[in-house]
């Protein structure tokens, strides 16, 4: 397998897995939110934020994928000639956000669903719910940082 292909699979995995996680997560939040809104439509703004929170992982995966594309020249139309080793390096760099993004989005969504139910009963505590949900995201952010740092390091190595 050419290194370029492996790198692209890695970048794809970051966007795909994290995107799937976020899609599942936002869907779970949306279902809970719709249930709450059927009784209390005035809470739309509050539950919308909670529903949107598990959506960020997909964006993180997307960012890492784009960074890889920039590095390996896919975006500019002149792909680099990567060795198999380099390809696997990019692949590895994509894995943190791919895996953590997938899982943390789903787990964050479960917290978001609980927080949405809590908001339905006590609209004033929505900020606490947001905080609890955001706590889960910390680990997606750390994985994103790890992926970004690795990809940027590899990009610099390539352009040097």
């Amino acid at each position, binding site marked *: 397998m050419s290194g370029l292909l492996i790198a692209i699979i890695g970048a794809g995995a970051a966007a795909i897995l994290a995107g799937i996680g976020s899609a599942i997560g936002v869907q779970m939040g949306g279902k809970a939110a719709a249930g709450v809104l059927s009784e209390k439509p005035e809470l739309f703004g509050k539950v919308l934020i909670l529903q*949107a929170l598990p959506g960020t992982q997909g964006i993180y995966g997307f*960012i890492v994928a784009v960074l890889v594309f920039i590095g390996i020249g896919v*975006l500019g139309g002149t792909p680099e000639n990567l060795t198999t080793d380099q390809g696997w390096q990019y692949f590895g760099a994509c894995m943190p956000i791919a895996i953590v993004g997938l899982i943390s989005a789903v787990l964050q969504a479960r917290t978001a669903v609980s927080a949405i139910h809590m908001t339905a009963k006590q609209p004033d505590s929505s900020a606490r719910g947001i*905080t609890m949900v955001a706590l889960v*995201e*910390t680990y997606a952010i750390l994985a994103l940082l790890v992926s970004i*740092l690795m990809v940027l390091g590899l990009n610099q190595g390539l352009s040097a």
Partner: protein
Amino acid sequence: MIIPMKKAQIVVLKEDKDKLLESLQKSEVLMLVSSSEKELNVDLSFEHETLKRTEESLQVIKEFREKPKFVREEFVVDYDNFVSDNPRRLELLDLIEANNARIGELNLENENLNSEISFYQPWETLNVKLNELDLPKYAVVHTGFVLNHNLDNLCEHITSMGGDYRALSTSARESALIFACFVDDDKELMDYVKTVGFVEVNFDRLEASPAEIIESKKAKINENLKEIEKLTSELKAYSLEADELLVLSDKLASDVELKTAPVEETYSAVYLLGWVRSDQVEKLEKTIKKTTSDYDLEILDPAEDEVVPTATKNNKFVSAFEPITNMFSIPSINDVDPNPVMGFWYWMIFGMMMGDAGYGIMMVFLMRFLIKAMKPKGSTYKMYKMLFYGGFATILWGILFNSYFGYTLGEIVEFVSGMKIEVLFKPIVLNPTVDIVQYLVLSMVIGGLHLISGYLVKAYADMKDGRFVDAILDNFAWIFLLSGLGLIFVPSEILNKVGMALAITAVAMIVLTHGRKSKNIFAKLGGGLYSLYNSVNVFSDILSYSRILALSLSSAIIGMVMNILAEMVGGGKTVIGIFFAIIIYIIGHIFNLVMGLLSAYVHDSRLQYIEFFGKFYEGGGVEFKPLSMSLKHIDKIEKVEI
């Protein structure tokens, strides 16, 4: 700043009660509390009933009212008008309700008429008055429906038995049939027609033909429609007075506030107990004096264990950030108001997370416009205001990062004027997408400073309560440790040594003194070591600020990707290409701005709640809500004399 509270006890004569409560509601100075366990027993059925009726009537005339303009006009009412109990308001309610009920009746009647018409429709060509169907002495007339495929069969049979028939109308499935036969044959024929599925229809024997009946019912429908039109135009006229109903709604809600105000009554006097801001005591006394001269007012300090409501007084900038704190927990009267320090950091970190001057400008204009257009009240207004200020922080950091909608100033200048000015391509501080390691350090330095300011607030609070030893040993130990470790990484030998000394002092302070509250010497040491172990938490707090980098980076990269996409599409310089490029620019950057705002709001709040408030803030207070008018529709009441 948290304003100290005073407790006010007021005694007035019973006949002055209503007047006093009204002026208290006007001046909004006193938060009444119940002085006994006894539940208030007031009859609010009129208010609730009328409120419901008002909302329903407003709903009825909603379709006739002018569509709210994009920029809403402020709804201002004079106080005298507000409290006037204008009888026209209740009258309007009756009129609208009567009209609406009548329209409903007429519509229902028309519906029934229509279904009756469709009942007679198949028989429209029957040119006989219905009561004439019974006239023949030796024949029986039947009317009814038969399925089309049985029609021929049936007709044949009728003819064969000497009867006569006429098919009056045919639908796709069945035909309306009238037939007659001799009285003697009737039973036999009826037995047969049932086997071919004939369904008999019995008419009321009216003195009119089906066509005449249909005609008269149609006339009735038209008459009803005319009445509906008249009633609707009346409703339209009433809708011009909708403002009266809006005032009524707010007046009723305010009356409920008045009636539910906890007041103790005796035979001839009433006793009010409540909280007043210490800077408004005079205003309270003035308010009471204006209503009656026979009163007794006593101002007390709150007792030790009492739940005292909290009122904060901050400048415009800081008060915009109050909802952030209040969503976490309202400050208690014993807290130091966290808002001034928190507001500044929230503002600063928000700007870093957004980090683009273009987005900042959009935020400033958008929020300014929204405040103008929607005229929000209360905490919504403060939220908009907070995002408005946040826009300036975003502009500031955008300039420092040299990021304008994902472009550097140099790129924009080159595009517009063709000049290539080298300096404008370089960021002032750093470029988030390139100098990532530097940005990570910057995030953590900001985090360290944020935490240090948290410990300083705690130290201030401790000193205010007279616990000087705690203030120094507990808080400054951590401040020394954080700043010492920070200094170690500064590339300067002297500062490194200072940092090292600070850090060692801090560790010694922590191990030796943080167990001081235990009695046993081993427990003292153990407590100190445990506290040192807690430094792990402090460092994980600092690492948590790396989210500033992550969010800033993700916002910057998405902006960059949108620009790359737009350039790819518009690169050919064709009209269509440029058109789509502009669409990508607009939609892409609006999407990025919205996602960025959501993330920045959530994660900036989190940094305040978990990392910052965790160091000093307790909260758990009750909001100071003085007796006031409850305004849902009215923006402002003018000419209130206090």
